[in-house]
Structure formats: C-alpha cells, structure tokens
C-alpha cells in the first residue's frame, strides 16, 4: 500500500514538472542576438581587466578590441532577420496536453508490465531476524549457518545441518558439515555414511576412494548400514565389477526390513544393472507381476533365456547366502521345471550339505525333491 502512495506522489511530482512551465507566465526573454552581445561586452571588459593586470600589452589589447567590435557589428546585421513568435498555437497546446498526460499513462502502463509491486524488499538481515515459523528452509539454513559461523565448535549444529545440506543438494557444504560433526561429536555409522554420500554426490555420483573409506568406516561401526552397503555396491558397479555389485544388492534385499526405504533404491539399481530383483526374501515369491507379464510377451527362446538367467541369479544368491530354506526349494523346483535333473540333484546335495544331513531341513528337502522325482543319489 505504501508503495502505491509513493508511486502516486512521484507521478504527481513528475507531471507537475511538465505542467507548471506550460501554465506559468512567459518571462520576457531576449532574442539570441542579445546573448551574443552580452558575451562580447563581457569580453571587452575582460580585456580591460587583463590590461590593468599587465597580462597583455596596450597594442595587443587595441587589436583585440577592434576584432570584438567587428563581431558586434556583424551581429547587428544578422539580428534584423530573426524574430521569434511567442504566441501559443493550437498544435502547441495539443502537444502540451499530450506531454502532461503521457507521463502518468506511460509510466503506470510500463511499470504494470515490468514491475512486481506486490513483492516487498527483502534485505538479508531482516529475513534472518523474523519469526522462524515464517521462514523458508533456505532462511532457516542461513540462520543455522550464521549460528555456526559464530560457534563453529557446536557439533550438534553441524550434525543437524549436514543432512539438510544433502537434501538441498549443497554437497560440498554437506561434506564440510559431516566432517565437522565427526570431528566434534565423534564417529557414528550414520555420519560416516552421510559423509560418504556427500562426497559421492559432490563428485556427480562417483564413489571415489574418499567416499569408499567413509562407507567402510560406517560398516565397521554398523555392518547392516543400508546406505553404506548400497553405495559400496554402486562403487563396485562403477569399477566394472558388476557381478559383485549385483550380488551385494541382492544380499541387501535379503536383509532389509520389508518397509525399508532402501528397498526401492536397490531394486532400481538392480534393474539398471540388467539384473532382476530376484531374491526377494519376504512374502513375494518368484518374479513379480511385471516380470511375468514381460515374460508372457516374449518369444519362447527369450522367455527360456530370461527364466534361465533368473534361476542362475537365484543359484548365485544361494551360494553367498546359503541358509535360505525356501530359496533352495525354489531352486530345486526351477531346475526340475527346466528339465535340468542333474543340476536339480546338485542343488539338493548342496542344500543338504548346508544344513547338515541330519537336520530337519535336510529331510524336508529330500522329501520335497522326491515329490518332484529327484533323489539325492543316482
């Protein structure tokens, strides 16, 4: 509101600057020739003063005076011709009114197009001083930064700020914040993993040696840290050790809680690596609906190939994580379905070996295999 009042006052002032001279009385102004005459008279008196000060010789002064005199004579001849008219004509009045109107119309119209009258000034100091509840995330961060600039040894402050930096994609700042938090408040898996993520993100997602060290430090403190596990696998994939990466991810899927936010990320990573997220330990068994649908649209050869890869993946997974009852049973059945009796028998043998020949599981496996027509020995 205040802005509009100021704008109105300014407009009024500007319009008056145009209007007043137009309505004011005309001063008796002299023709241009009079001004010239005045200059020449000034010159003559200056000449006298110069002579009095001894700056020029009398002879020279005489010469100069004669020259100025000739100029004045010439002026008199020219003055006859020029005459000004000071009456105001109709077109002059028209121009005057257009000019007076143009100032407010043009300025308000143009400002309407260009300006942002509703946006107040926002000096930084004011923004940082207002009630935190009204502040944006950026402003809160800036305030926390100001606080930390004053108290750089506040480890808790760095610890709070670091993940916010990560979310705001200010990665180099996040690296600094995590380092400070670790330095001041000590090591923790979460901080180390965060540091690793910040370093990797700052490098455009490349898991460098620095980042790897941080992740490994995190795993030392908490072997199940999902972030560290995930990124280390990413690092493996970036080094070209794809198989190891896939295995690591699949192992993660086996261990993650069903509602873990990392599940999605891992599945996506596997999909990108060209490996199906096969080894889902919890409820879902076997390929998901999408994969089944995809399989149905494939040619028979492709479908066969896809199923074989999936089975091979499962086999790999069981080699690394052998204490998976259901997994073994699924593997045995898969080999039977594929008509690979030898491999089914081999899998049965391995499964029995894992749990011990006398265990409950071994008996269950043997019975299951027998129901499919597979016996442990030939």
């Amino acid at each position, binding site marked *: 509101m205040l802005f509009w009042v100021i704008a109105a006052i*300014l407009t009024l002032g500007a319009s008056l600057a145009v209007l007043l001279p137009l309505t004011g009385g005309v001063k008796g102004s002299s023709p241009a020739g009079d001004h010239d005459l005045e200059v020449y008279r000034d010159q003559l008196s200056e000449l006298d003063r110069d002579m009095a000060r001894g700056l020029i010789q009398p002879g020279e002064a005489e010469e100069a005076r004669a020259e100025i005199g000739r100029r004045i004579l010439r002026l008199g001849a020219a003055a006859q011709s020029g005459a000004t008219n000071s009456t105001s*004509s109709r077109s002059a009045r028209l121009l005057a009114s257009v000019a007076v109107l143009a100032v407010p119309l043009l300025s308000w119209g143009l400002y309407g197009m260009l300006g942002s009258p509703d946006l107040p000034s926002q000096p*930084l100091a004011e923004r940082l001083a207002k009630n935190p509840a009204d502040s944006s995330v950026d*402003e809160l961060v800036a305030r926390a930064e100001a606080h930390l600039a004053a108290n750089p040894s506040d480890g808790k402050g760095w610890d709070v700020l670091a993940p916010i930096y990560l979310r705001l994609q200010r990665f180099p700042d996040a690296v600094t914040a995590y380092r400070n938090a670790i330095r001041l408040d000590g090591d923790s898996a979460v901080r180390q993993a965060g540091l690793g993520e910040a370093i990797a993100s700052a490098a455009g997602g490349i898991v460098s040696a620095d980042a790897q060290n941080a992740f490994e430090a995190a795993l030392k403190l908490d072997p199940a840290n999902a972030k560290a596990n995930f990124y280390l696998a990413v690092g493996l994939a970036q080094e070209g050790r794809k198989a190891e990466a896939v295995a690591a991810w699949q192992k993660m899927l086996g261990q993650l809680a069903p509602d873990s936010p990392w599940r999605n990320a891992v599945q996506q990573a596997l999909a990108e690596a060209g490996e199906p997220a096969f080894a889902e330990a919890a409820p879902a068994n076997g390929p998901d609906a999408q994969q089944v649908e995809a399989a149905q649209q494939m040619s028979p050869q492709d479908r066969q190939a896809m199923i074989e890869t999936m089975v091979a993946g499962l086999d790999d997974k069981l080699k690394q994580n052998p204490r998976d009852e259901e997994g073994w049973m699924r593997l045995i059945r898969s080999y039977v379905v594929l008509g690979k009796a030898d491999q089914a028998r081999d899998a049965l043998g391995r499964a029995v070996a894992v749990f011990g020949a006398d265990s409950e599981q071994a008996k269950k496996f043997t019975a299951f295999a027998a129901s499919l027509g597979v016996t442990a020995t030939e």
Partner: protein
Amino acid sequence: MVETGHFALVLAFALSLVQMLVPLVGARTGNQRLMAVGGPVTVTGFALTALSFAALASAYAGSDFSVASVWENSHSLQPMIYKITGTWGNHEGSMLLWVLILTFFGALVAVFGNNLPASLKANVLAVQGMIGAAFFLFILATSNPFLRLNPAPIEGRDLNPILQDLGLAIHPPMLYLGYVGFSICFSFSVAALIEGRIDASWARWVRPWALVAWMFLTGGIAMGSYWAYYELGWGGFWFWDPVENASFMPWLAGTALLHSAIVMEKRSALKIWTLLLAILTFSLSLLGTFLVRSGVLTSVHAFATDPTRGVFILCILTLFIGGSLALFALRASRLTAGGLFHPISREGALVLNNLFLTTATATVLVGTLYPLALEALTGGKISVGAPFFDLTFGPLMLPLLAIVPFGPLLAWKRGDVIAASQRLMAAFALAIAAVLVTGLFVDGASVFAALGVGLAVWLVAGALTDLAVKSGAGSVPPVVMLRRFAGLPRSVFGTALAHLGLGLTLLGIVGTLCFGTEKILSMHPGETVELSGHTLRFEGLTPQKGPNFTEDRGRFLLLSDGNADGEITSAKRFYPVRQTVTTESGIRTLGLSQLYLSLGDENKDGSVVVRLWWKPLVTLIWGGGLVMMAGAAMSLLDRRLRVGAPAKRRKPAAALASPT
C-alpha cells in the same frame, strides 16, 4: 524500496521522452512555454534517476537477493565497500550509473544555463533527452536491474573476484563521468546544427565541458591502467586491449576537441571543426560503450553477454552517430566559419595538434575494429597487438610530442617560430643533456631509451619555459617576475601542468620499458633473490582466511646490508563461491620506482614460483595522469572569459621577444 526505484526509473524514462520532444518543438516554433518545459523536466528526471540508483545501491548494501542482479553479483559475506561498489560492478547497474551521470550533467545545464539563449538551451536539453530516452529504453528492455526473484534465494553468487577491489569504486565512475561528459559537447553541437548557427556563448560553454570530461576521462584511464597493473599480476600497465582502446580513442579525440575549443573560444576560429570533433568524440564514447557492453569483446568488462543487448546498442550507435553526421553534412554549410589566421601561429599549432591527434585516433580505431570486422566477415581470428600500435601510433605521437612546447609560446593569429625556438633553447639544451647523460652513464641504455628520456625532459622543461617566459624571465627583474608569476591566469598554469604531466607520463613509460628488469624463479622458504640491487628473502607461505576467500600469503623481506628493510606480501586468493583464483601482487614503492612481485603456482617440492619485476620510475606513468588532471582542474577554476589578443601584422623583432 526496490519497487520504488523501479517505478522511478520508468518515470524517468517517460520524462526523458517529454524532454526530448517538447523543448525541440518549442525551439522550432519559437514557443517560449514549450521551451521552458526542458529545464524542470531535466532536473526532475535526474532526481528520479538518482532515487532509482539509490534504491538499487541500498538493495546491494542490504544483500536483497530478491533482486536478480543483486543475487547474481553479490554475496552476504563481502565487505560493505564491495557490496556498494558491486552496484555498478555488473552490466545492469553500470548502465544505470551511465544514465545517472547523463541526467546529472543534463540537470547541470538546466540549472546553470540561464545565460544561454532560450532556443539553444531548449535544443541542448532535447538532444540530451534523446540520448537519455535511448539508454533508458535500453535498460528497461534488455538490462533491467530491478527484475525480481520470488522466492528469493538466500545467498548470492558473489561479485567477480577481480572486481572486489577499491579500483571498482573509482575507475568506472570516473570513466563514465568522462564518457558522458562529452555528451554535453555533443548535445551543444547538434543543437547548433539544428539551429543552423553558432552563438558566441556556444564556445563559452563547450570548452569547460570538454575540460571536465577530459579531466575525468584522464583520471579514469590512469586509474584503470594502475588497477590492471596491480590486480592482474602481469606487471603491465597498458595492453592495447580493445577495451582500453575503447576509452583511449575518446581521450585522443577529446584532447583534440579541448585544443580546438580553446581556439574557438579565444579566437572564434575553427568553429565547424570543433563542432565536428565534439560529435566524433561522443561517437567514440558511444562506440566504446558498444564494444564493452555488447559482448563483442570478451573481457572482465563484458560481465554477461547477450546478443539482444549488442543489437540494441548498435541501433543506438547508428542512430546517434549516423544522425548527427547526416545533420552535420546537411547543415554545416549554413554555419558561418570563424576568423582567419596565419599558418604559423597559436591557432596553426593547435590545428597541427588536431591533425596528429585525429590521425592517431583513426589509427587506434583501425587497430581496434579491424580484427573484429575480420572475425565477423571471415570468421578468422587475428590479434592486433602492441607491434601494430608501436609501428603506427608511436611514429605519429613522437613528432606531436616534439612540437608540444612550441604551441603555448606562439602568438595568436601570427606567430614567429624562430622567436619561440630562441626561448626554448634552454629546454632544448636540458633535453640534449638528458640524452647524453642517459646514453653515457646509465647501463644498458639503448639509443631509443636515451632519446625517449630526452623527449620527456624536453616536454617538462618546455612546459616550465612557458611559465618562465610568461612571467617575463630574463627581461624583468626577479621581483617583478615573481609578482607576474603569481598573477598569471590559472589557465596558463593549467596548460603548463597538463603538458608537464604528459612529459612525466612519457618519462615513466620510457623508464619502465627500457630500464626495467624481471626474473622468474622458484623459491624455497629462506632463499634470497637479487634484482637490480634489491635483495629479497622468501619467508614462506601462510594460509589465511578473508571474509569471503581463503588465501596463501607469501611473505618476502626486503634486505639491505643483511637487515630487514620492509616487507612485501603477495597472495594467491581462492574465492569458493565463484571457484576463482586471483593473484594479489605485492608492490613496494621505492622513490618513484616500484618492486613488483607476484606469486605463481606451488611446486611439488614445496618451492613456489615467484615473478619479480623492478620497474624504475613506473609511478610517474599515473602520477603524470594526476598532474594532467590537476592542470585541467586549474584551467576550470579560471573564471575569466577567454579573449585571445591577436598579434599585429608587422611587429618589430624586439616586441616579439616581449611576453604575450
């Protein structure tokens, strides 16, 4: 506040349109009321522009990142001085400064122009209004400094680190005062062409304006040169860079204008030529603005490049240069030429000066524009650097400098070269002595160096001779001479100081170029190095933290006879926001000379690359500029009217020897 500034800018644009049209029509039809509009509108336009600029400056000072230009060119951690100077350290803000100065000068004419004929004043203000309107439109259409961001970012992108220097507070405002000051001379010329006649008061007005503009331009160029010298870390003071040439060309033309305006004011001669020079000088200022602002050239001055801006400025350029020259072609024949003079006379000397200066300007123009034109036409990139200018500009300047001392000693209308030469005998002897001393006693002096020193001494001694002769040295007793010296008009001192400053600058250039030495080496802490008799010990690098940068500061101790005799520090600064590294050179002034030091990269073995220069007499380069400015100021303070008394046709030889 920000939006108030924006609104004031729009309002100022609207007023500039009124200022451009109404007084012009008034002058055409002889309507007093319409002509009278010019003054108040100009003053109000200036007030609004000043308000607008203040609003922008306060947005910069308060780090208001809701303003796009502030966000792009400022940072909350910058020291306050750089926050404020950052207002014009970017394209948008610098254009606003440009129109602020333009409207300021316009307002000065409006306020102090009461003794001008009404129609001349109206026309001058109208032409100023045209220039103003064009640039206001340019700002609003392509470079609006008041564009807003919503939501506002919390931190800015920082000012270009090279510009975070005190130089930014001085160089651009001074340069703009110079550039834009010539707009008044331009407006007066175009007004005279519109009117079809040149009033006697015309000359009285043009000379001081040319002088003001020239003074600031001199200061601006000298400051820019010194800034580049210490900030870029190469130790060079002039690079013949197109951006430098862009300011140098108006200076050369402006120097010519200044001299021809003297002839015009004192003798009513050279009227048409002066008028043309005024047009050319401002045209070159506009050309400079175009070269720097359009992004045609890539440099620290270009800030951001945007093709639409280039096209827009090119249109302004074409309109004003083309328009004024066309008007000149149409109307010049109607103007009455001024008085006559003998070729050998003060006027003649000034004409010669003008010939040399305009030719030199043309040379620089060719050297600056040719590579650009070639690139535009064929795409080929060539670089026209120092060798071209040394071969063309140098030979043109040398004879001009050689005849400078003669000018002030010649009489108006008819001069006597032989008499003038006799008076300059002492100066000439001094110059010859300087050549001999330099050639024989200074190690490593080439013939060129000796002659250069001689020329510089010739200029300085010539300027002093002028003062001595005018106070009557040799013909009157010392007491009278002192009294006369004190009573000399300030303009005489102005001339002498300006010419003396020129000599000093030349001496500085010759000294630095011919006697300077340099060394590049890598140093470990504790090592010493010797350069031209000065011993420096490297103390080591220490990391330090500034408000918005971190730096490695290298300390060097200056040793004399094994004892520490002062310290020089040079630093490599890193500005994290812009990810830029700058070099802060270390300079120690010893007498008129300087020891210049700049840090290079750190080697793996812990040593640091150090570049060292010994620059004898280097401060005279800019000191001469300051003396020239002082001369201009002195001349401005001279409130007398200028009447040049002509010499008589046949004068006895004895009379010629007497002071004029």
